[in-house]
């Protein structure tokens, strides 16, 4: 062995001890290790430290964008670099459906094909499409169902990696995949130069030069009766006023998550005219004296992200963000992150759990500081309201309701799409005057309001003005102004089931009534005979005890179906 002097040597197996030799110990530290080479690889990808905790979701996207998935070694390396535990990284990644996590020993398919199964697409037989795609593409690519992609006017919708496919069929999907055409397709849009040439950012500049009074701006918005167009309907002017009063530092958080079923109006406006959103945001920032603005964009809007990245850079280069820095914060696939406090959690790089509203998000918001939260479309209208005056906006209503409303209409209509019409319009008028009526061979039977969360009304109740405050007495609400129309071809059970499956999948799982309730709801409505009394009890507890709007609104389809479609359901 060696030229050492005679020393006492204890050989393996020499000494006796109760534990000796009975069992083999670990040969490396506990748990999953990570190789230095992988750590170096990820560091090259995401940059040098320090790594802000809030950017966890960003970094996970970097990894997935580069490698097509999140493998365990890469996630472990990221955890090491960010000084987080493996559980901390995995529990965030596994919350969001856009992240493809690939366990040890497995590899990801080069393409992930998502087929939407939400109502508008289901009405176009997307369930069949999903089956056909699975058969056709076999094991080569991952074929999975996905929730509403915000392309309901082009149903059925699918996406192959970052490439969306409208009016999807097996054929046109195959074409895209075979061509390797998987990057987002950027449509034509009004870019920075064109926007400025048409008078854009003049208003912002006037604000920055002190030519406007903050309170005056706020008053204009209030006079226009601008309300939160994400669906909550909170008066925008009042919200800005309350944030203005709070101490600095302050932040704006723009909710561009738009994941409510059937809703695509934010995308519609902003993909055409992104700077109206940016200018609206920067004006909000100036008015409320915030120094940062985070635009939280749902991840499935891949091309919108590219547009915004490009155009934000131009706005920065033009020196228009000195008062408020713009950040683009990527979602990762979770409907619940459209809930304002869940959105804040997601921007902070965490699981999208809505917060309890004490304290309020206005006061203790993003990163714990006062935050102005507005829907993207709401901010989109700010410039026009101020430039053209509140009356221009408010007088576009009808039936005594103020302002225009952008309805996202989908389903069994001839001309689905975004309809910018008067708020307070009735469904009949919307359907026949603006959507070309029902598709041939289909008789108007009912319509889902506010996407999944505003209740379902029958065709016999299509004269009610559609707006905030007008539908509540019927157990419904306008929400995001998404309307999906269904016909005599569509059993009410199937419609309700589609919506309830959506809720079950999207529930964040934090609180008992929603996590358990959405799952029990699906099981109960799948029964042949609906147990009305048990369903009512379930709806009660979800409505009264859920932490956030998802759980509180999830009972709406069931309650309204039981109220307005009793015959079809066989309820006496």
């Amino acid at each position, binding site marked *: 062995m060696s030229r050492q002097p005679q020393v*006492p040597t204890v050989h393996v197996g020499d000494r006796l001890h109760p534990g000796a*030799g009975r069992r083999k110990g670990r*040969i490396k*530290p506990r748990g999953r290790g990570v190789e230095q080479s992988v750590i170096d690889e990820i560091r090259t990808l995401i940059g040098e430290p320090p790594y802000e905790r809030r950017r966890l979701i960003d970094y996970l996207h970097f990894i997935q964008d580069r490698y097509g998935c999140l493998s*365990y070694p890469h996630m472990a390396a990221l955890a090491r670099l960010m000084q987080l535990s493996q*559980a901390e990284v995995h*529990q965030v990644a*596994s919350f969001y459906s856009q992240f493809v996590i690939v366990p040890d020993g497995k590899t990801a398919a080069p393409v992930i094909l998502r087929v939407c199964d939400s109502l508008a697409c289901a009405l176009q037989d997307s369930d069949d499409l999903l089956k056909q795609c699975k058969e056709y593409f076999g094991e080569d690519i991952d074929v999975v169902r996905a929730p509403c992609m915000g392309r309901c006017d082009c149903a059925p919708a699918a996406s192959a990696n970052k490439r969306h496919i409208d009016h999807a069929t097996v054929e046109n999907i195959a074409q895209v995949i075979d061509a390797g055409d998987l990057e987002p397709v950027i449509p034509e849009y009004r870019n920075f130069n064109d926007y400025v040439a048409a008078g854009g950012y003049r208003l912002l500049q006037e604000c920055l030069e002190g030519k406007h009074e903050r309170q005056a701006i706020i008053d204009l918005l209030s006079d226009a009766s601008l309300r939160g167009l994400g669906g909550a309907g909170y008066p925008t002017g009042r919200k800005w006023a309350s944030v203005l009063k709070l101490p600095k530092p302050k932040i704006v958080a723009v909710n561009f998550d738009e994941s409510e079923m059937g809703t695509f109006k934010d995308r519609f406006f902003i993909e055409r005219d992104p700077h109206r959103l940016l200018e609206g945001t920067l004006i909000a920032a100036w008015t409320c004296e915030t120094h940062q603005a985070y635009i939280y964009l749902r991840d499935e809007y891949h091309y919108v992200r590219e547009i915004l990245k490009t155009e934000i850079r131009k706005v920065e280069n033009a020196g228009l963000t000195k008062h408020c820095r713009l950040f683009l914060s990527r979602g990762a696939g979770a409907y619940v992150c459209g809930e304002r406090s869940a959105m804040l959690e997601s921007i902070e790089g965490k699981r999208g759990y809505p917060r309890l509203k004490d304290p309020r998000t206005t006061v203790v918001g993003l990163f714990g500081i006062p935050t102005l939260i507005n829907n993207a479309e709401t901010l989109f209208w700010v410039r026009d309201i101020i430039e053209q005056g509140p009356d221009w906006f408010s007088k576009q209503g009808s039936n005594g309701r103020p302002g225009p409303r952008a309805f996202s209409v989908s389903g069994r209509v001839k001309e689905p799409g975004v309809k910018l019409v008067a708020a307070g319009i009735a469904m009949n008028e919307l359907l026949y005057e603006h959507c070309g009526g029902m598709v041939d061979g289909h008789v108007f039977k009912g319509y889902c309001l506010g996407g999944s969360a505003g209740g379902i009304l029958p065709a016999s109740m299509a004269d009610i003005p559609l707006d905030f405050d007008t539908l509540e007495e019927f157990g419904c609400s306008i929400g995001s102004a998404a309307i999906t129309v269904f016909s005599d071809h569509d059993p009410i059970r199937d419609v309700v089931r589609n919506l309830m499956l959506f809720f079950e999948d999207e529930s964040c*799982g934090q609180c008992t009534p929603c996590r358990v309730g959405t799952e029990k709801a699906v099981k109960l409505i799948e029964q042949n005979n609906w147990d009305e009394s048990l369903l009512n009890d379930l709806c009660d507890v979800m409505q009264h005890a859920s932490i956030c709007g998802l759980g509180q609104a999830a009972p709406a389809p069931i309650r309204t179906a039981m109220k307005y479609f009793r015959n079809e359901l066989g309820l006496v």
Partner: protein
Amino acid sequence: MSGGIIKRDDVHFMIDGEEVTASPYETIWQVAKRIGKLIPHLCYRDAPGYRPDGNCRSCLVEIDGALEVSCRWKPQPGMQVLTDTPLARKTRASVMELLVTDQPPREQAHDPDSPFWYWAEKIGVTQSRYPRREMPVTDNSHLGIAVNLDACIHCQLCILGCSEVQGHDVIGMHGRGIRAKIGFDFDDPMGDSTCVSCGECVQACPTGALMPSTLLDEQQVLTKRPDKKIDSVCPYCGVGCQISYNVRDNEILYVDGQDGPANNNRLCVKARFGFDYVKHPHRLTRPLIRRDDAPAKTSELEIDPADPLTHFREASWEEALDAAAAGLKKVLDRDGSGVMAGFGSAKCSNEEAYLFQKLFRTAFGTNNVDHCTRLCHASSVAALLEGIGSGAVSAPFTAALDADVIIVIGANPVENHPVAATYFRNAADFGATLIVMDPRLNELSRHATHFLQFKPGSDVALLNAMLYTIIREELYDRHYIERYTEGFEALKVHIEDYAPEKMAPICGIDANTIRTVARKYATAHRSIIFWGMGISQSIHGTDNARCLIALAMATGQVGREGTGLHPLRGQNNVQGASDCGLIPFMFPDYQAVDNANARATFETFWNATLDPVRGLTVVEIMDAAHAGKIKAMYMMGENPAISDPDIQHVREALARMEFLVSQDIFLTETAAFADVVLPAAAWPEKDGTVTNTNRQVQMGRRALEAPGEAMPDWWIVQEIARRLGLDWNYSGPEDVFNEMRQCMPSIRNITWERLMKDNAVTYPCSGDDDPGQAIVFGDGFPMEEGRGVFVPAFITPDNEPPDSDYPMILSTARNLEHWHTGSMTRRSTVLDALEPEAVAMMCKADMLRLGLKPGDLARISTRRGAIDIRIRYDYRTPEGVINIPFGWSEAPANLLTNTNLDPFGKIPSAKYCAARVEKLLPEIRATADTSLEEFAE
């Protein structure tokens, strides 16, 4: 918090029509509890460290017509809270019904006594009308913890416990919605994960989804319930967690944490699962006398603890005690007191430590009595006594929560003071700056603001460079120095040689980092220093500690909340044993044996003539025994054949010794050499007090009957004492404690009754109403004029630096799961399963260089000996170093260490000596899963 505190007003509001007043920080739930209304709660754990999450929704109350969760809601002035309206009641019942749906039926519940079933019954909902979901299966991959997620209600208390309380961050909620599940790491089986088995999750879980597996049968149904619950203290480390033994039929079923001042219900794996060693068949149950025909003692002597009768015969207590006393007396009478020596125990109680040293000093007339502190913090204590007049900590480790900057140097609390480490992590989570300095990486790195991996042995260079920065940049506290210290001017001159640029190549930390951490430490409002064996177990351990003391005194970071000096004491009672005089230089309460006044006091008090000469220390005693100068020893609860350096030398000394009495609970490697072996009661089998690292005196209580004829240590010592002519008549530990109070000012004002009632009292303590002074030295030090002394430290060449024959540095270490020489923990089922085998740890570069793969066997040699041991790959070990946990008798690291001592503390350098590592020849290599790709860190 510094400066003014914003005073918020109390809140006046109504609960169920009753006027109540809440402090501004109370929740509605807490106020309701105060007035006797217990609102149902599941995801809110009413215990220290747990914030209410508000997710289960079972605590809903009606406020102004709406339902809100009382566990989270703070009352507003004039608020009307109604706890029992029909809506509130119905909704709570509905919530319960949803949760009951997916539970196993109560008759098959994993924990039918859980809070979940308690509240289900209270609310009146134990059945459900809803259809069930598919039930998850059991995860039994962890030997000690059964994971049955079919009972999980997603309350997330396990996550709070694991992350926010303990700081391990192993548990997460993976996935979303109803498919979300509790999982470990990347949702791996618990047994494969980074879980350290602290059991916090088990303690926090309100439904029985996480249970001690000892309580469940194969079907995961609860079968055993305790019939007694006894509060006590953990017997392992110096944290001193308060625990509760849950006992049935003289057996401990499981252990809970209690809300002690040092742990707030938290535990580590050892307290949680390491209690079954007391029932191990190897327990000594009858006194043993060495057989006349036993083979002669040699240094290779080994006796199978399962079968001692190869070398011993059983005897009655009478015979054995007589033989023990007679044997000792014979040597004493023949050769005088100088040849007698004793090792007391840092694991026995204060009372036992006191009696042991009293026995030696009064019956044998010698000060040759010591215990394992000599191997541990002797240098720290030497520096502290010299510098500030007291070897005890200046603040408890919980003071980290009040600190702005925390330095942890030369310590691995994550493995050795696990619950103390949880407070450091808590502090870092709250925003404190955590600066960790250690040649070896440890798990605090995840929470540390700075991790300085300096070169082994270069502590003085690094610390003096910090002092240089502080002095040069005038960041020191002039006022404090003028008022409370002396010797600063000399230090200023001395430090001029230690500029960071000059020290950087020596310690391996760049000058910029040295300056940064020095500035942070000095300028923070409150900074605190914790240290461990890395500082103390060195031939310049005293110098290392002198630097730490200088840092604290120069910056005034001592004597206030959130500041201080804290050498993390290792054993459960090493502080207490030292306090009780189990040291060769000191009587109880650190009164020097060579101080005439002190000696006179004790001579009167004990009515005996006492030796005026300082005695020998542990390593010196073994050296003297080896040379034939110490001829008889009495050892109580010590195992130097594994714990002392150069154990070959120790074993030769033991073999040579004329007469050895060993008192222990197992036949240890040392006891094998004894002439008389006396079976002692284990910690849960006796009463006694122990003092932890925080200066908290805590009460340990008897929960079990000792097996066979084993007796408590105090009784045995008394019996020996009587046979040596001492007139001792203690009827129990309480008597002893009362005597101790009379000669130990530190505990004079603490009564046994109070300890029985309060379980813990800090010293110094001025009386029954005083909880005790947690922070000391706020007004100067117990030195002349109250002034601490700066003692400059020089860089000393290290003990046996590496050379061409022995090119690596050997540094001993420990395991989380094991304690000291493993006599207790390796006989505990769960602890043994978690860490069954001796390993030596190396980093990738060294392994590659030596052609080693993880799991290979290697021979580690030094000039003292060689051991064959399995190699564990560990990225935390720095290059050029091999780390070996020392407590494994089949591969004892102390066979390799040397006996060079620190000149002041007399502590051997366990952390540094020269070694060589060689791969063992292929024939000897055992099979292991050795594929090279697994160099993952």
